[in-house]
């Protein structure tokens, strides 16, 4: 089997369009995960024991079951309870929550890395708990969390093909469709691999740059 350049050129626009969808899915899923993950992390630090307990159980549950099952669950089981979601919405909820569970652990590590003396200094100048988190603790928890957050950004991007199982038109689904129509799989799958490789490597490099920039901006080399 020979590489067919004409075929490659022909399917390229379709593949690039699907790449856009993949990036969109990863970006939206990650945005959800970043916010919900922080809520998961903070909920585990409140004095409300019951909230801490429930959140920890949710996080454990999500981390101990496969993502693909969670995607199916939200998409196919939801309607049995009258919750009808489009593939996109269901997919974003599933993948967002999944990664929120992982990110909450990253945040927790970052928050715990802030020395106790910082909290005491905040009490001494009488900041509220909210002000302490917002102005003092979270900014210091960010730099040590960036590497872990970046790893999960790349992970979520690489996990978007799982959304093809419920019909989200991302890169993997496009490759399958193109391959099936033309009975040629070499080019579409190779292109998927190359696109993922290029974007993952670029993202990893961007994350390292971002971490260095944040540390410098905060004056904490």
């Amino acid at each position, binding site marked *: 089997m020979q590489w067919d350049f004409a075929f490659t050129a022909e399917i390229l626009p379709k593949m690039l369009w699907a790449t856009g969808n993949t990036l969109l899915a990863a970006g939206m899923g990650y945005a959800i995960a970043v916010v919900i993950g922080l809520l998961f992390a903070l909920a585990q630090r409140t004095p409300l024991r019951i909230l801490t307990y429930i959140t920890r159980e949710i996080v454990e549950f999500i981390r101990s079951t496969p993502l693909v099952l969670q995607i199916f669950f939200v998409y196919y089981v939801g309607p049995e309870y009258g919750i009808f979601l489009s593939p996109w919405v269901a997919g974003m909820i599933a993948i967002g929550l999944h990664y929120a569970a992982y990110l909450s652990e990253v945040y927790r590590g970052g928050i715990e890395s802030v020395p106790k003396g910082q909290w005491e200094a905040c009490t001494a100048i009488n900041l509220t708990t909210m*002000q302490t988190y917002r102005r003092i603790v979270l900014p210091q928890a960010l730099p040590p969390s960036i590497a872990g957050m970046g790893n999960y950004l790349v992970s979520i991007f690489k996990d978007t093909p799982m959304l093809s199982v419920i019909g989200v038109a991302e890169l993997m689904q496009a490759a399958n469709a193109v391959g099936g129509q033309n009975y040629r799989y070499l080019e579409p799958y190779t292109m998927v691999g190359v696109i993922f490789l290029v974007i993952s490597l670029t993202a990893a490099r961007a994350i390292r740059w971002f971490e260095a920039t944040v540390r410098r901006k905060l*004056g904490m080399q």
Partner: protein
Amino acid sequence: MMEDLSSYPLELVGPDIPMVRFMKVRKSYGDLIVLDNLNLDVAPSEMVSIIGPSGSGKTTVLRMLMTLETINGGVIYVDGKPLTHMPKNGVLVRADAKYLRKARSSIGMCFQHFNLFPHMTALQNCMEGPVLVLGLSRREARERAEELLLMVGMIDKKDQHPSRLSGGQQQRVAIARALAMRPKVMLFDEVTSALDPEVIGEVTNVIKDLVFKHRLTMLMVTHQMGFARDISDRVCFFYGGKIEEQDSPAELFSNPKSKRTQQFLSAVKAAD
């Protein structure tokens, strides 16, 4: 077990109200008693130094006053009002978060390890509290912060982050940060213990200035006997969670009455 607090006054009245009063204060961690029935008054504008061997409970005294530690018995009063408790239906009950926040606003503290905010410049460190807590405008807060940084000799370094400053410089910024909140009582917890010997002087000079020019009420835990002797109105020697002996510095250092004080002072002298 709930302590009976009915014998404690709701507030202190009379002509000579102390700025700080520890009244039968008890602190323990499990079975370990750190402070045992502590009674201690600090008068307005008084400078009291606390000395003693490690584990004698001296740092705990300051931490309780800053509300970093809860107490297990007794009541602490600041400026005549209860700090650790609040009046409710005519009796004192344990203070809630809201009351504590209001009550502790008259107290400032400097720590052994400075605890400056590393992601903020010296100036920002001193503006954070006044803006967020006291509600000053950024301009007012900046003026106040610059005035204080000038006073502690750190105005040249106001735009530096703590990582760029020496220990002595960081501690001076920390003093300015605490003063920016306009406390009535300042607490110094071994503020020179983490410093290199050659920079201790720059910090003690700032504190001396405060004592002689500003007449704040101050409590200081220190290992520097010479410094305590120079600037204190009174020195308390702590031993085993109790005040073993307290007196004017001249009297306590040259003529200690208790055997434990004598032993401690001669051990310190031998180490110097």
